[in-house]
């Protein structure tokens, strides 16, 4: 059975008398250890899928299941990273990365007594993204790319089975963004968590994902599912190969169809 299952899931926002159908009848299944990307234009319900899967919002119709359990309330121990790094300015980078340890069981209970061990773990993780020397700096002393790398570390430190990424690299410049793809892929190859990436960057989706879901708006729905069969690890060179370009083009054409 798949790790994440959406069966005919819908979400309707109600604001007074106005109701907006943000997501209509979404059906998808994500295997354990799979990395999927959800792409589409703004307002197509990409982020809604994230909210449903993590249980931050309950579906108004249909079913959402994670690891065989129905999701109605926020599920525990998910890693999340947003476009805005949302690091806490009053904590150092290291303390920011350690935050999940203070919240998630069983770490929460042993955090105080075994702090050194956890600091060690966080430093290793920061080292893999090249931030070891910045652990004691505050987030506002870091560049945007560094902040986003710390954000990824915070999302991964407690080794969640599910990592949700909502346009995490959207606010970065093109070069930093491509560098972050490499960082992200290396982390995934090492840990093999189940990843859900929401993005509007088609190259990013093809670079990182095993499966890409294309969404369209009004109402938000999934219109296409595409397996990405490129070998890993993918590099910047991969993005210039004809097959990569062809895949991106196929996705782009499908989105364009909706607008014609």
């Amino acid at each position, binding site marked *: 059975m798949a790790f994440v299952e959406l069966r005919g899931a819908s979400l309707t926002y109600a604001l007074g008398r106005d109701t907006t159908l943000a997501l209509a009848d979404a059906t998808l299944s994500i295997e354990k250890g799979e990395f999927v990307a959800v792409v589409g234009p703004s307002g197509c319900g990409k982020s809604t899928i994230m909210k449903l899967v993590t249980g*931050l919002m309950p579906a108004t119709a249909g079913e959402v299941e994670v690891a065989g359990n129905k999701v109605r309330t*926020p*599920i525990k121990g*998910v890693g999340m990273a947003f476009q*805005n790094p*949302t690091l*806490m300015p*009053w904590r150092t980078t290291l303390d920011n990365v350690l935050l999940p340890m203070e919240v*998630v069981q069983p770490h929460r209970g042993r955090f105080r007594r075994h702090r050194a061990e956890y600091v060690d773990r966080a430093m290793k993780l920061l080292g893999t993204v090249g931030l070891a020397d910045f652990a004691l700096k505050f987030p506002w002393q870091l560049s945007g790319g560094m902040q986003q790398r710390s954000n990824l570390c915070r999302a991964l430190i407690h080794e969640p089975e599910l990592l949700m990424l909502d346009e995490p690299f959207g606010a970065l410049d093109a070069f930093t963004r491509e560098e972050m793809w490499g960082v992200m892929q290396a982390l995934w190859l090492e840990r093999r968590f189940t990843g859900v990436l929401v993005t509007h960057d088609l190259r990013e989706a093809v670079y990182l994902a095993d499966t890409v879901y294309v969404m369209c708006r009004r109402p938000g729905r999934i219109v296409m599912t595409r397996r990405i069969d490129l070998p890993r690890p993918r590099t910047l060179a991969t993005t210039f190969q004809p097959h990569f370009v062809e895949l991106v083009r196929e996705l782009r054409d499908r989105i364009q169809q909706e607008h014609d």
Partner: protein
Amino acid sequence: MTRRDALRIAMPWLVIAVLLVVWELACIFFDLPEILLPRPTRVFVVFCQRFDILLAFCWDTLWTSLMGFLLAIAGGMLLGLAIGASAFVYSGLYPLLIAFNAVPKVALVPILMIWVGVGALPAVITAFVISFFPIVVNVATGLATIEPEMRDVLRSLGASRTQILLKVGIPRAMPYLFASLKVAITLAFIGSVISETVGGNRGIGFLMLSAGARNDTATTFAGLFAIAIMGVMMYAACALVEKRMTRWAFRGEIVG
């Protein structure tokens, strides 16, 4: 330090000096009687002559203000956290708070005196009720303006409401709290002095009132200066604590 920096630091003293000189000259030029407006030099002489009495009465005002202020911090934080954390408490209490804040506190003093008598207690209570409001509003604002994404990060980790409050809410509200303390401490002085003036038997407000009754305008002015000096000192103390406690909120100054 450049000359410009030196001048910037000296500016407040220069402005005060110029004001005092203008005041002095105006008194001499228009030949004002001392009962109407004493010259600053005369106020200074009285200030020095009566320094012992002033100090004793200042002490009364200082500690009633500080007591009221401390109570206001405790009460203001609790209520601010409750209002900021819960939409129900907010909608129930906020209009009431606004209404209460609009009541002139001077009108409360006679009632307080009926309840608790004359002395230090009405001054403490008046200082409390007047300095309480900005603390509540600021703490509540700090909590209410937390980025929803920051809350989502914690919720998705399975954090309880209490944990979210402890990890994000309270640290996030701290700069707002400390900013409000600067306002609140000066309000606390106003509260104490109002109470002492309306009906007290102690404190600098009482001293000024009785000096005024004796047509001793110079002493009244000496009292005014004493209050102003205490107010500035307490404000500076609060500002210092603020910088120490919430370094991250002043990041622009440190990085830049």
